[in-house]
């Protein structure tokens, strides 16, 4: 069995085979693989006895369910008004320079994807970003780069 099938099977075992389990199952796959591959979608469809179009249609609605390969670590910087006012553009610039990619791209070594997100709920402590599930607030260009470097020197994920 391929690692993806194993992963899907494990998630289905945990959450069940009903339609309500679809999102939790997909979320587990995303958590491990950081994105939903075609294989994973087909496998989920088979396990839950849904059409793969149905699974794709549901998954593609949610912005945290990426359909193309993402880096090991996903950086999501808040682009909503308060973070904007507090200088998110400078943070973006600093991160782009450090990772040598543009917003929306993934580094060549596959370590990071750099994405923008709508309000992540830290407006009073902007600019803010998420790296995976972890929150970083009151960023300066320097502290943002520092935060990323923590992950850079880390062999394992998270």
């Amino acid at each position, binding site marked *: 069995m391929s690692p993806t099938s194993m992963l899907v099977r494990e998630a289905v075992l945990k959450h069940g085979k*009903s*339609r*309500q*389990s*679809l*999102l*939790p199952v*997909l*979320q587990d796959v*995303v958590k491990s693989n950081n994105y939903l591959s075609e294989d994973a979608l087909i496998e989920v469809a088979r396990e839950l006895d849904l059409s793969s179009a149905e699974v794709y*249609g*549901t998954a593609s*609605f*949610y*912005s*945290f*369910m990426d359909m193309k390969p993402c880096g090991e670590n996903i950086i999501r910087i808040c*682009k*909503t*008004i*308060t973070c*904007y*006012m507090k200088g998110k553009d400078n943070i973006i610039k600093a991160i782009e320079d450090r990772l040598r990619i543009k917003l929306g791209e993934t580094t060549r070594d596959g370590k990071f994807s750099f994405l923008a*997100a*709508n*309000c*992540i*709920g*830290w*407006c*009073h*402590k*902007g600019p803010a970003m*998420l790296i995976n*599930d*972890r*929150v970083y607030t009151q960023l300066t260009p320097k502290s943002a780069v520092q935060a990323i470097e923590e992950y850079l020197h880390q062999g394992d994920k998270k």
Partner: protein
Amino acid sequence: MTKQEKIRLLEKQQEKINLIFENIDHWEVIDRVLKNPPQQIIDDIVESGLRGRGGAGFPTGLKWKFAADQKSDVKYVICNADEGEPGTFKDRQILEEQPFKVFTGMALCAYAVNATDGFIYLRGEYNYLLPFLNEKLAEFNQGLKEREMNFSISIRSGSGAYVCGEETALIESMEGHRGEPRNKPPFPVTNGYMDKPTVVNNVETLVYCTMIIKENPEFFKNLGTRDSRGAKVFSVSGDADVEGIYELELGMTIQDFVDMFGDGDTKAVQVGGSSGFCVPRKDFKETIIGFEGVPTGGSMMLFNSSRSMFHVLHNYLEFFNEESCGQCTPCRVGCQQLLRGIEAIKKREKPPAYLDELVKLAETMRIASKCGLGQSVSNPFISISENFREEIIF
């Protein structure tokens, strides 16, 4: 007032009104309630005048009453923790600091309407809270079991869709579908999750329910105004001397608010997040924060005179463009056209009078959109473009 003085004054006020973050013995509340008939809870919540704190402001007691009146073996209570409105972050803090008061509110509701299962729909951006909340939930569910209450709570995660904060979209998402809002009626209280009667309440609403039952309805009713009873947690951000989360009595004017939080140069306050209303300086004195004036889910964003309201509106419209579920045409196309429209005016591709056409489009969206998202785009659009017309067209 200096910043330090403002903070001190606010701290003093928080001593007077501190319903949400005050520590309580939640089991004492539950044990006391379990001795009374369920109807008593509903009567108390109705009597308190509490209205939903998520933004829409539906009377909570009535919602519970409708659900209680339904004949069904299976009913659900859902805590809406899909706090996605830009400028709102109070629910996160409440869950972080007072999780048991939220769970208690859900248990009280379950007892009142006779529900068996509870869910917390937590937005994906707050996933870091999951280990903490699951641990507290295990403890809470165990406590309910010991009291032989047939109710338990679990958590479902969102995946980054703002529209899932709309209750029927939230239910669709929980059922494993795209988070597209349903037509109403039927409302969730009759046909909700899995087509069963379902109460969907905001995090803060549930905590107020806990506090109303702990104290009494009168104590809550005596706060605020006739149309807006009680207090409310505000998320303050933007060009403010004091930012953060503050619980204040409803019914204050924007002027009072700005005097307390502003940086002395506030030109506009966006009340209720990107889907709320923009109040310009000239209206600060007459505008009341509450259901009789500008209603709010708690988001208060302050802008000083260094800010361009064009950029503010542009940012909101970009937000709506991305977050519109795309299911109904007025919202899907309307959001795109409003954004393109103000860009075209700015670039001189369209004459200033085109803004009037866009206002008409926004009005159409309010009438014709299927859910609250599309209907409320007109709130920021019209309030900003009418009050700051020169900034949009020049």
